[in-house]
């Protein structure tokens, strides 16, 4: 352990991992051009993907990646909160429960049994939940993974004491801004853009692929209106359910639409949603 020199006035930054793939915190290392300048502005006090050298808290800003899936993590996040002036959650796991949130829809132990040879060695909670369900969060940055430009913007905003300039509107505004022709209208491609939060720069539609919904629901997402349109333009109801059942499955707007569509699909097909529909149980 190193000791901070008394003369170092840089604000301290800590990065914490919970149940996650590390992709979001690696976005910080992906800021290659800005990383050294950033290191001049903040002190990386705890960032084990970058260095095993850490300094003790409290910290000015903590970035928290991952969801709460174990009893230990449910306690550990309280320590992180207690040691952080500002706590910012990053990514779909930390803000919505992540892909592991699919287990919230399944019978207890169903996923662990399908994945692990000896699930009896696991001690996990029955749900994967976002950090904000456990402790107070100062800012939530969405995305699977987060956008590194947005991450820098959030850090710069906290450094400057201003509000981050991060949009809450839909991906459609990003498509229109870059001149991408709407896939829903011009091809009938199923696309979650109209109900998904902007931030990725509308990457997928620009390559001809409908939006996957990586950034979760936008502000005021009207998922039922989009689901109605998808249905009317020929998307199977199981598929509609599946579209809402990915990285942000546990985000309330997506969760509600999945449950509605899954029930409708079951009622009209006479069978339940199966795992090979890509939707869980």
């Amino acid at each position, binding site marked *: 352990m190193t000791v901070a020199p008394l003369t170092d006035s840089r604000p301290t930054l800590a990065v914490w991992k919970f149940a996650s793939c590390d992709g979001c915190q690696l976005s910080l290392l992906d800021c290659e051009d800005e990383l050294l300048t950033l290191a001049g502005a903040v002190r990386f006090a705890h960032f084990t993907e970058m260095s095993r050298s850490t300094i003790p808290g409290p910290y000015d800003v903590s970035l928290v990646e991952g969801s709460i899936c174990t009893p230990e993590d449910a306690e550990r996040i309280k320590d992180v909160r207690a040691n952080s002036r500002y706590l910012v959650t990053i990514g779909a796991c930390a803000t919505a429960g992540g892909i592991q949130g699919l287990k919230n829809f399944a019978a207890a132990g169903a996923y662990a049994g399908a994945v692990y040879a000896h699930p009896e060695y696991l001690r996990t909670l029955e749900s994967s939940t976002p950090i904000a369900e456990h402790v107070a969060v100062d800012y939530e940055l969405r995305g699977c993974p987060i956008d590194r430009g947005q991450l820098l913007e959030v850090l710069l905003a906290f*450094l400057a004491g201003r509000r981050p300039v991060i949009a809450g509107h839909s991906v459609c505004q990003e498509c229109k801004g870059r001149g991408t022709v709407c896939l829903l209208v011009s091809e009938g491609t199923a696309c979650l853009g109209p109900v998904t939060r902007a931030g990725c720069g509308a990457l997928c539609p620009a390559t001809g692929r409908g939006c996957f919904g990586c950034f979760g629901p936008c502000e005021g997402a009207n998922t039922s209106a989009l689901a109605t349109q998808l249905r009317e333009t020929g998307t199977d109801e199981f598929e509609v359910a599946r579209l809402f059942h990915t990285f942000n499955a546990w985000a309330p707007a997506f969760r509600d639409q999945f449950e509605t569509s899954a029930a409708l699909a079951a009622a009209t097909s006479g069978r339940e949603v199966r795992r090979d529909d890509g939707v869980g149980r």
Partner: protein
Amino acid sequence: MTTRHEASDGSTIEPGDVVVLHVQGLEELIASLIDAGFDTRGPSVRNGAIVPGALHGVTDLPKGVHDVQAPGRYRLEHSDDGQLFGWAVGPGSWKAEFFPPSQELWRASPAGDSMVFTEPAPDQRRLAIIGARPCEVAALSVLDRVLANGEHRDPRYVERRDANFVVVVECGRPGATCFCSSMGTGPGIDAGFDVALTEVDDSDGHRFVARPGTQRGADFLSRVTHEESTDRDRGARVAVLERAGVQMGRRLDTEGLASLLARNVEHPHWDEVAERCLSCANCTLVCPTCFCSDVRDTTDLAGDFHRRRTWSSCFDLDHSYLHGGPVRASVSSRYRQWMTHKLSTWWDQFDTSGCVGCGRCVTWCPVGIDITEEVRAIATSDGASRRDVPSVKGAP
């Protein structure tokens, strides 16, 4: 027998004249605009739609391409007819050329005890738009009222528009969502252009009836191969416009429309629309006259400050955010704001309709909400109030 003038024979055309160009003449017109230093842009096929793009010659035009439009639906069809302008407007409007989706307004750098402010260099590009439709020229004139002729001039918009050369092509094949004839903005046009063309393809052949609208338009036309027009040519133009009027897919009854909407702010139909509305802002972003923007300041790692303006939308919750929250929190209030501004309060503010009848908001709404239908729904139950219908969901 018509008189043919070669590109260089020194014949003079005046505004008000009507001449005929063939494809070769159009090619020469594009080339002469390029030679004069214009950045020539026109319709191009990209990702399954006709959108503004670079235009270097006639071969770049969407030959034989037609569009099929419906609420929430757009498809292109390819034919072997030689029509170059056989389509109605696509999702991209010329607005973006003058009022870009995102632009830095200035940056400021700390320098000792003071700040140094820097504005981006002026835009030197002279833009020639080739193949704008009459509704689009009408839309630019609506935008001019807002961004150039109003109390608050946007200097960048003004500099781009001042240098702008417009070749309009009258509409011969309106789409199923078009209603320009209701709005008085098409399918023909009499002003607001340098050169107007009408594509004609009849027993006398494929040609363009051309009319200069300005002296510089006349000068450019004088320099390209053309013929004097005959009664048959001028009659053929009228026939194209008459046929277009008949084919117009939609209509909007504008009689008393502004006051109809003004007295129906509590109509239950706003809530019915909100059930279907995604509030995704597509209608406003494809609209050629919507001008709302968001101005934000950011900081960077070098310590500089940036002020940037980006397109915004009245459907964006943040757009009406004041201290304590958004003024228009419900979708019904946002849809109502958009439509009543476009068709009613725009008159109070800018002395014109904000809608030119291009139909983009109808086609490019992912769920196909149709402004002409929504107006009709309100008109047929004029005076209904959701205050009388306490069970309506979502009423504020």
